[in-house]
């Protein structure tokens, strides 16, 4: 995941596009439309974009999607297996889950048996715990048992619970928020640092360019994980959740900006020789207008592509750091801190559903990768 991520199957898509297919309509399209037109043909990238969009909807509506309070500890319900949502009862549509009956086996371990004769009705837009969304205090949830004061026996745990009896599904919804926010904040920092340094490097050239490029080479030559771990371990454990969040964000964006700086510099240098830039100079446009009006629009898509790919790396980095107990720490909820509870294989064997956050990570990272590759392929709509 460190090396070679720059080299995408860029040639794949170009192969499939028939150059004669473009009709008269294409000729009057703006740059943005052209990119969109080309991106749309990349079906995998389109599907990936939809998945990424769903993840961001989860970020916004995580509390609405949750069924239980993600921080609610229920000692009576530790390690309950997933109660999969059932949509039909026989042939009759009926949203429900099977009731779990807990008992102790001969080793006095708690075991849960599914009893599908006893249904727990699941309602849509049910009442549950209160949360804030867009400044409103709400208590409606997409799914739930329609009882804010529900007891442990009646509550539903769609994806099971962890060691403290906390609902895995609701925690996943909340965890998506933090894991993606770390990525977004990191990307924001990287874009600002990367594009400005890249632009300076390309614009001034000479000594400054050399200095920035060599620094980037040096930074990229440092093995990522030992450095990340070293930095993360140096943060005191008693820092507040927010402070740690920002510290870890900075750690995971240490490398991302170098890629962006390289992309921006490379594009700038390549574009300086283009006819349309020369035309703008001849037409008497000043430097600022040339950069912002003529050159920057051609950067956008490249910057977005590089950011999308970096975002995937950041999600993996955060997950890995937190999994090792060096990134975010409980009570913060992220994919990494959730997987932290599945650290040893004995626990996994006992409660395999604790690995479900891992599936989310994989799906998100793959979607971001495909989306990034698609944007990169579409970024240069005038290419072959």
């Amino acid at each position: 995941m460190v090396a070679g991520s720059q080299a995408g199957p860029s040639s794949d898509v170009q192969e499939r596009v028939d150059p004669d297919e473009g009709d008269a309509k294409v000729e009057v399209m703006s740059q943005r439309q052209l990119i969109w037109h080309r991106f749309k043909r990349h079906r995998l990238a389109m599907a990936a974009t939809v998945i990424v969009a769903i993840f961001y909807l989860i970020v916004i509506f995580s509390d609405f999607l949750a069924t239980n309070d993600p921080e609610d500890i229920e000692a009576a319900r530790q390690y309950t297996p997933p109660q999969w949502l059932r949509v039909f009862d026989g042939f009759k549509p009926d949203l429900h889950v099977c009731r779990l009956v807990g008992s102790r086996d001969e080793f006095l371990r708690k075991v849960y048996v599914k009893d599908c004769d006893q249904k727990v009705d699941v309602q849509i837009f049910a009442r549950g715990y209160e949360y804030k969304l867009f400044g409103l205090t709400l208590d409606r949830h997409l799914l739930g048992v329609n009882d804010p004061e529900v007891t442990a026996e009646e509550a539903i745990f769609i994806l099971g619970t962890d060691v403290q009896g906390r609902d895995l599904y609701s925690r996943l919804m909340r965890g998506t928020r933090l894991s993606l926010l770390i990525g977004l904040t990191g990307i924001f920092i990287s874009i600002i640092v990367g594009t400005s340094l890249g632009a300076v490097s390309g614009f001034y050239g000479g000594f400054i360019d050399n200095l920035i490029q060599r620094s980037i080479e040096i930074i990229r030559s440092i093995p990522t994980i030992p450095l990340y771990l070293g930095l993360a371990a140096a943060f005191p454990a008693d820092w507040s959740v927010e402070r740690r969040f920002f510290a870890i964000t900075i750690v995971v964006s240490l490398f991302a900006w170098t890629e962006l700086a390289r992309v921006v510099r490379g594009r700038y240098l390549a574009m300086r020789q283009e006819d349309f830039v020369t035309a703008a100079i001849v037409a008497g446009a000043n430097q600022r207008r040339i950069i912002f009006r003529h050159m920057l629009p051609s950067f956008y898509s490249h910057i977005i592509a590089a950011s999308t790919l970096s975002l995937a790396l950041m999600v993996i980095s955060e997950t890995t750091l937190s999994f090792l107990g060096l990134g975010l720490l409980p009570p913060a909820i992220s994919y990494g801190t959730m997987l932290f509870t599945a650290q040893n294989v004995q626990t996994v064997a006992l409660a395999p559903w604790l690995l479900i956050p891992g599936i989310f990570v994989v799906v998100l990272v793959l979607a971001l990768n495909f989306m990034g590759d698609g944007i990169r392929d579409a970024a240069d709509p005038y290419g072959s």
Partner: protein
Amino acid sequence: MLAFFIRRVIYAVIAMWAVSVIAFVIINLPAGDFVTTYIATQLATGNLVLEDEAESLRDFYGLNDPVYVQYSKWITRILQGNLGFSFEFNAPVRTVLEMNLTNTLLLGAFTVVFIWVVAIPIGIYSAVKQYSPGDYIATFFGFLGLGVPDFLIGLVMLWLILDTTGFLATGLYSHEFRNAPWSFGKAWDLAKHMILPVAILGTAGTAALIRVMRANLLDELKKPYVTTARAKGLTEWQLIMKYPVRYALNPVISMTAYILPFIISGSVILSFVLDLPTIGRDFLRALTAQDIYLSGAVILFSGWLTIIGTFVSDLLLAWVDPRIRLEED
């Protein structure tokens, strides 16, 4: 070539210096210093350290010196082979590192061989038979290998093996061989335990290499000289192996330098999950215990090894491909 060589040496030395500064900063980041730790350990055993004594200790170890003096003393000691003392292992850092060096190198070597043996043929196949079912499968697994964190594959594999066979596939040696002298039996036992970590560590590297290999070979195959060679009647096998594959292998050489830091990085996390006796596992233990001299040494050496690796691969590339050294001059 000489100018190229000298320039690369200068870059490498500057980079190694920069890495040493970063390692030094990381060592000094945690609150307090060596003496604070010392006082804490003394207190824990019931000994009280007086303020004067602490002060004289700080003077003795030069902790009251300006930062740059501390740095130069530290780096001088390192270059003389004195890496400091590990509190966590209660032994000199050097001894701790040497303890698991063989295991780490063995794991790395096996992984590199695995990546080459798997990735190069698949990369060639994927490019030559583009859009065949085999190509799609390879691309799919390639993306999967890049997208799934190592520790997750490790955990899932470990669980699946435990669940199906009841065998806990952790560690590198079975119990009876752990402290035994080297023998055929021990080597065989090690080989069996290596399969899982090598396959997992190799997956991501293989995925990256397949993508690079495929993309490069695809670019080469479109070039006119390939058509010429085909027109001259070379068999398809000769045609591909003789020129395009050789060109496409260039980035493979440069990537091999990145495989080394990649394995160091990857092995840290995998060693933790699979409980492998490697430097990576000691490093993680040092980090959680804030055993700064050990963790600093690992960061420093993994950085230096990477820079040396990059340097060697640059030279190899320049030697293999004259275009590169001409471009730079």
